[in-house]
């Protein structure tokens, strides 16, 4: 990530340490993870200890210290999804992608993330990929979903 890009994000939030979490979110979105050198740079710019940003980066679900895949498959683990079989969806995706929960495929294409309730309980169980929601998904259908995503 270039310094200019980070500076742009910092400026967007007026380099206000109160927006540290928003700043890191934008960096995560841009770079799919929080690189160590960028965290150090941001810490300097905001005059915050890097340890605080590191804690934030390891605390909130939105952040990852390792690069996430091109497609992040967010499997909703909310209650409604749970009682409608979300754990089995997660298992099926894990088998299909051959990665554990939170893992990223070797080709960097997919990351499998169990997430807390996406608030789409009426169409549970739900898998979210980018901005697209896939509702009422079934374990037997995940193969097709992955195939479709892989083909773009």
């Amino acid at each position, binding site marked *: 990530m270039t310094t200019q890009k980070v500076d742009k994000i910092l400026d967007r939030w007026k380099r206000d340490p109160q927006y540290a979490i928003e700043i890191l979110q934008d960096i995560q979105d841009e770079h799919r993870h929080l690189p160590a050198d960028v*965290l150090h740079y941001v810490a300097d710019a905001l005059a915050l*200890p890097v*340890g*605080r940003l*590191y*804690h934030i980066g*390891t*605390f909130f679900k939105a952040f990852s*210290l390792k690069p996430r895949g091109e497609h992040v498959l967010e499997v909703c683990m909310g209650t409604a999804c749970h009682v409608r079989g979300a754990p089995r969806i997660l298992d099926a995706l894990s088998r299909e992608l051959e990665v554990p929960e939170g893992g990223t495929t070797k080709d960097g294409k997919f990351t499998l993330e169990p997430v807390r309730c996406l608030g789409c309980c009426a169409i549970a169980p739900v898998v979210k990929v980018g901005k697209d929601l896939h509702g009422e998904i079934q374990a037997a259908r995940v193969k097709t979903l992955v195939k479709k995503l892989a083909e773009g």
Partner: protein
Amino acid sequence: MGSATTTELAPSGVEGTIPVTVDGQALEVKPGTTVLEAARMLKISIPTLCHHPAVEAYGACRMCMTEIEVRGKKRMVTACNFPIREPTAIFTESEATKKQRRGVLSMMLARWPKVPVIQSLAGRYGVQNPGYQHPLRNEAPDACILCGLCVKACSEMVWEDVIAFAGRGAKRHVTMPFGKQSERCTGCGTCAYICPTGAIKVTDEKNNPVDPARIRKYGFRLTKEMATLDDSQCKMRRVGTAHLVEIMDAYDLLPTHNYKFGKHARIAEIASPVWTSLVRQNVPDGCWVGCQMSCAKAVDDFVPRTGPYQGKKVLVDGPEYETVASCGSNIGVFDPHDIIELNFYCDTYGIDTISFGTACAFAMECYEAGVLDKRKTGGLDLKFGNGPAALELLHHMSRGEGFGVIVGQGIRQMKRIFAERFGGDPRFLQDIGMEAKGLEYSEYVTKESLAQQAGYAMAQKGPQHDEAWLIFMDMVNKQLPTFEKKAEALYYFPMWRTWFGLMGLCKLPWNDVEPEDNATRPEPNKVPGHVEGYENFVSGMMGGEYTIQDILKMSERVYNFQRVFSIRMGHGRREDDRGPYRAMGPVTAEEYESRAERYDGQLKELLKVDPAGRSTAEKMALLRRYREEQYEGVLDAVYKRRGWTRNGTPTPETLKGLGIDYPWVVEVVKARMAEEGSA
């Protein structure tokens, strides 16, 4: 009337106290006192794991759960951070209290079964190992129990924030960012000291002290003082020595215009708020491992207006008080940018800011007095306040060009050159040239403190305040009314402070922060609590028991060696221990008249002379004679106290008493004494 208004404005209840009972024992506490503090006042123990008085209460371990009753309602609270605001009954050993403590302990025991503090508390409350297997069970006796004290201490006490929590929930752990040793960690050991389980180890023991625990105990005490007291004392961490600028001005001690005066109307332009706004505070200076003072400051992205770095962004150290005074008020410069730039180029060229500032001030006064002119200075308009000219002079010095060559040789040489080549009055030059032993004065006006006049001029390496700083004791506190008292101070403090040099220690932690009880101890000026700390430091380092007397003796030997060495090099005479008259009193009518009330008063009181009707010149001469006589009196008294002759030569008996009467040493002093004719 005044006090009535104060009462009206005071928050209700703050003045009063609140009745509290702890296990039935009654006491009164101030509002906001915590349950834990109240219990401890009565010596009633409440167990804690994440609490330490030096850091803010965190309330995380929940070990201190305690039952209280307020307004007839019972509830469970954490003692460490529950503030008492109304009458409260505290039950530290009730069944409800014990039940919760047992519950918390049982959870900890499941995860960390072998940690001694947990085992012992479990024993106290009769907690057995639980029946389930904790998936993160850690059998290490020195396991981290996530109390967070190290994180809090590193942040609040050390101000480094190199240790952090990471992860959340079951994944919570303590680490340095990215699991890597942080470059900012100075290895101060505060975290290791405060850790209740020994999970943090200090691995660097290169100095191999005999008793590291003893040293750490006193080191930690100092760290705690810095963390909890500095903000209400000298603000060394938040402001640094720059806090002295406005204080010295208030006491008429801040040198302005080559030490003519002690204060200036434009003080606000260079006072500490200016520096705190310009300067990045709390830059870890790392000059001493374990020092939490972090008094060094830096200015980021400074852009010099002149010189080889003109227009480029640079990082500047400082400026300290001495630099603000020497490169600021003493040369009449009140532009912070100029001061920082002078600071930067002095550092870059390897020139001391004090020597430069004082030398420049001398040149400026000579310029204004007509000794110099533009032709002689190579075109520099060296008027007081001309910052750009001062910078230009500095660049000339660095390049060895023109007038810079002359100033670069220092005031002692300037005095000779100005008299020989420019026809200056040697007497005037001698009076205003602020040097002794060839070194420029550091930045305090000593006119009203006889003891400090000697403290400067008698210092072995020249007139700076490293040996003794006695102005307050002498001038304001009036603690040194007699020659003998002054001599005693001029004996003790130079010996004491020489010891810092011997140990490789910095003087600031000795008396720029003081223990909480310092004011109530005898001789608070010596900071007895810290002196004890130094005794323990030496003893812990070397083994054995060293007292302050042992320490002073070490110094006195070295101090006398230094004097003998000076003598061997042809110096170390009484005349070398005298400073210029500018350090002792008003040289010019302008100076006298600016403080006429003070000087006239002294003529009346001390000399019993009525100043009325006398000319300024006449009054100045009277005052000068008196002050110079006084100075000689101090010299006599100090020499006597140190066991030196009237010419400042250590006697063979003195050397013998110190155990340094080696023949080749005695030979040197005997030769000098023979020369004096006092053998």
